[in-house]
């Protein structure tokens, strides 16, 4: 069951009654709205998202969830992420399409996008190279967490280390990607690979 534990732990203990999640959502609504506001949404956008969430909860028919409050926060968080992603995607598409006009478009119009794809590939290479500098174990833990979806507790158990050691590996991995990304964003097209000049050492205690 722990595979589902990331904010959505189901358990028979403390089952919510039918409609309980929705009731709880109404209680928690001001807190969830506050979360959206501190993440930078306008009041209107926050209200709109909360309304969406209410409709989604209705279609769930109030199924029982463990840690329902954390679940509602996680759901709000995910919806915000979805919105930001699709907004970014729409802007990209509109940009491309407005250059195109109607009917059949010639190949000239798609060329900037092909170039964008190439840049995306180069960025990926730079970040991949940065990750490869990390110890094998850190990369393994990062993969388990980010790709395979293991919880930190499960990773700690399988590798026989403490949960706080797992956390430290994850901090280090995110740090390396963030540093590589910061260099890419600062100097487009001229990114160098290697340890950042502002590197903060977090390499202690990896295998505690």
């Amino acid at each position, binding site marked *: 069951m722990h595979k589902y534990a990331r904010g959505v732990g189901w358990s028979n203990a403390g089952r919510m009654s039918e409609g309980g999640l929705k009731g709880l959502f109404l209680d928690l609504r001001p807190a969830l709205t506050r979360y959206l506001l501190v993440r930078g949404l306008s009041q209107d956008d926050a209200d709109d998202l909360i309304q969406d969430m209410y409709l989604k909860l209705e279609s769930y028919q109030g199924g029982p969830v463990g840690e329902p409050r954390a679940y509602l926060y996680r759901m709000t*968080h995910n919806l915000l992420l979805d919105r930001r992603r699709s907004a970014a995607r729409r802007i990209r598409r509109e940009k491309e399409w407005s250059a195109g006009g109607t009917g059949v478009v010639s190949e000239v119009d798609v060329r900037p996008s092909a170039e964008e794809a190439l840049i995306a590939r180069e960025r990926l290479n730079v970040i991949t190279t940065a990750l490869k500098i990390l110890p094998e174990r850190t990369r393994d833990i990062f993969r388990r967490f980010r790709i395979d979806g293991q919880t930190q507790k499960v990773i700690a158990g399988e590798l026989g280390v403490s949960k706080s050691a797992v956390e430290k590996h994850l901090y280090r991995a995110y740090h390396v990607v963030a540093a590589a990304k910061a260099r890419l964003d600062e100097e487009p097209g001229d990114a160098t690979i290697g340890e950042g000049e502002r590197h903060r050492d977090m390499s202690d205690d990896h295998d505690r």
Partner: protein
Amino acid sequence: MTMTAERDDALREEAIRWHVRIAEGSVEDWEAFVDWLGADPAHAQAYDAIEAVDAEAGPAILEAQPQAPQAANDDNPSPARGWWWGGGVAASIALAAIFGPGLVQRGDPYHVATLAGQTRTVALPSGDRIALNGNSSITLDHQNPRFAKLERGEAIFTIRHDPAAPFVVQVGDERIQDVGTVFNVVRDEDGVRVAVAEGSVLYNPQSEAVTLAAGESLRDPGGNGAIIRSGVDPTAVGSWSEGRLSYTATPLSLVAADLARAIGEKVTLDPVLENQRFTGTITLDTDRARLFADLAVLLNVRAEHGASGWKLVTRNRAGR
């Protein structure tokens, strides 16, 4: 190092810690996170930056660490497979519980199919969306909202990544696992085509394990044929769902197959045209005559309409 740079660095590390903490956060963690965000607008900015880092990290991890961890005593190391095929009773009950009795038909997959010329969007309760192109069929399961099987045709998947349950698409014997992404899949006589618009996917995680990032595509002819990787315009992936078809140096035979699926009529090609490459965007005009007239001009061919659908022939052979 300047004071500002030092502060930025400290904020970045703080944001990383929050990101790791709320991944499995209790309600107390979330409340503390909200307080931290509210304490200074710079905190929200720093956290947004880490979310962007997380998004870019996914595909890079797959490249840097392509091997999935092998748990001891586990014959099915893929997590998706582990809980879908071998997951057992506990997982089934868990999923039945959250979607409620009204929506669940346990162990009873359902099909969604379209006729040629028809498109249809399926919104899953999880918030994921699957748009089906014409003459396509997909099997879903109420019990497992993170799995889909494309029986035939074409679909674009807009999937929110949930690390606890990766979304898996099965196409014939091939499997595609998302890493938080928008991707398009075609299954027809020519095999399987996958193109990624956003994020990345893992193709056949248990065998070839090909990673496709945004702007990449692959063709798998099936059988013993080699998998061919190539680039694709990421903004054009799945554009059929918006009434357009976009291509970069694509053989006309594939363009014709896509057109047929989209308009619900047969589209045949003069054999000499089959391997001609096409780059451009076709708007799926409801006026078919205008659509083919435009296409004919662009390709320097003649478009003929008859009882057996549309036919594209070279100008040379057909004369004027």
